């Protein structure tokens, strides 16, 4: 297979599909998206499916708020025949230490400046929002009713189908093995099905972006880190919001299907490409979830799985262009919150790639911040 494309997007997750759609919508032609397995086979399809505006940095709050506003009408915008299962049941973020209370109030300050309808709630108010919540040791929480859930498979499918209708070509089960460059300029990509010539590559392959960037001598500060999840049998709706505790490192939400999806971050997780589930996770997850939400003890676990965060040193994504290389754009390093900001990220990346002024500033997400030492850590992530 020898062919050419004006734009090659590497990675068939929600970010890649959102960028493809937004580029095509802006009139860009000859766009090719390459995915090594099937769409959503990487981090997107393994994520916890939560979407929230409650972040700790202004930039993430803005990306998330704009994204949720897009999610609210995404089905219609993309003319999707199915449902993206968007639900705004809110996010309840639990605070167990004085330090967390202080940080949450700081976050609320940032959020309120941007018009995010989050608020502080006492343990009693938290119990009104989630009646089966165990408030033992709880100092309070923040709640935002506009946060919620969206189905990652359906959202990606919706973007992919809309992109295809606008002429984007999607190649699945095709692996990009190497980026090709000459004199500081991208010339193409080498794939498992042959070479594709292109002047522009958009790298959104999660952790694997690191290995691809290395093929043209660029070192990306990305590390893969396994995060595990489980899902229960479906039951009647009993919990509106996502319950999240940074103290326990867990999140737990009842999705519109009726099942509970819950996950846990492990601070001792080795940073490697391991996507297998462990029995230790099952035990720890069950112990923590049934402590915070006791009635869940009666629910049966149907399945567990794992996915990879693509962590950067400040847990913030890298957006923009690769310095010193013509034709390489980056949208990676989402550190576990890529799905929820994908709608706005796709739009901003399309604007950036086409040389337009971006609707929100993205220069602080630039790759060069690591070399300059200008990290800005996102405090509100599991």
């Amino acid at each position, binding site marked *: 297979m020898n062919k050419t494309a004006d734009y090659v997007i590497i990675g068939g997750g929600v970010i890649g599909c959102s960028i493809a759609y937004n580029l095509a919508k802006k009139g860009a032609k000859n766009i090719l998206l390459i995915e090594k*397995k*099937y*769409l*959503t*086979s990487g981090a997107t*399809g393994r994520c916890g499916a939560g979407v929230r505006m409650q972040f700790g940095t202004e930039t993430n709050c803005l990306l998330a708020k704009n994204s949720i506003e897009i999610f609210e009408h995404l089905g219609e915008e993309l003319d999707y025949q*199915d449902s993206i299962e968007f639900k705004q049941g809110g996010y309840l973020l639990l605070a167990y230490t004085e330090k967390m209370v202080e940080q949450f109030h700081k976050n609320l300050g940032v959020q309120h400046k941007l018009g995010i309808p989050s608020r502080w709630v006492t343990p009693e108010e938290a119990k009104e929002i989630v009646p089966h919540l165990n408030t033992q040791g709880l100092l309070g929480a923040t709640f935002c009713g506009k946060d919620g859930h969206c189905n990652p*498979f*359906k959202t990606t*499918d919706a973007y992919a189908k809309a992109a295809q209708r606008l002429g984007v070509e999607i190649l*699945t089960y095709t692996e990009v093995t190497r980026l090709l460059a000459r004199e500081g300029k991208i010339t193409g990509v080498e794939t498992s099905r042959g070479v594709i010539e292109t002047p522009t590559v958009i790298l959104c392959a999660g952790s694997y972006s690191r290995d691809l960037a290395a093929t043209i001598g660029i070192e990306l500060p990305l590390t893969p880190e396994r995060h595990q999840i489980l*899902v*229960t*049998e479906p039951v009647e709706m009993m919990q509106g919001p996502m319950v999240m505790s940074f103290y326990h490192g867990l999140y737990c939400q009842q999705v519109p*299907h009726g099942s509970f999806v819950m996950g846990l971050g492990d601070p001792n997780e080795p940073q490697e490409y391991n996507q297998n*589930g462990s*029995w230790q996770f*099952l*035990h720890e*997850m*069950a*112990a923590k*979830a*049934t402590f915070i939400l006791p009635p*869940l*003890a*009666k*629910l*049966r*676990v*149907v*399945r*567990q*799985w794992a996915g990879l965060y693509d962590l950067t040193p400040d847990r913030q994504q890298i957006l923009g262009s690769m310095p010193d290389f013509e034709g390489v754009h980056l949208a990676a390093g989402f550190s576990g919150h890529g799905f929820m900001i994908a709608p706005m990220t796709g739009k901003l990346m399309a604007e950036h790639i086409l040389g337009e002024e971006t609707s929100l500033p993205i220069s602080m997400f630039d790759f060069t911040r690591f070399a300059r030492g200008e990290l800005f850590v996102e405090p509100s992530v599991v």
Partner: protein
Amino acid sequence: MCEAKNKDLIMMCRCEDITLDEVRDYINQGITDLEQLKRLLRIGMGPCQGRTCTPLVVNELAKATGRPVKEIPLTVFRQPTTPVKLGVLAGGIDYE
């Protein structure tokens, strides 16, 4: 009594209530990858972990694509093999 419109209703996935017609509809849309069918239809995601529906869907995919059954790639079988209560996993004997 069975309604006339339900006469030919054939269930493929008992856990998630998915019919043969729904599966064929997706296959006719060009989705012939079991991984994609699972994620878009929830087929195989129920408590039985696909023990009933997976062989049936694989047969359908083989018929639609003309490939032998043994060449249709399966999805990953994930633990636990059988549903287990969170209370049991947490170590509480009350739920055993």
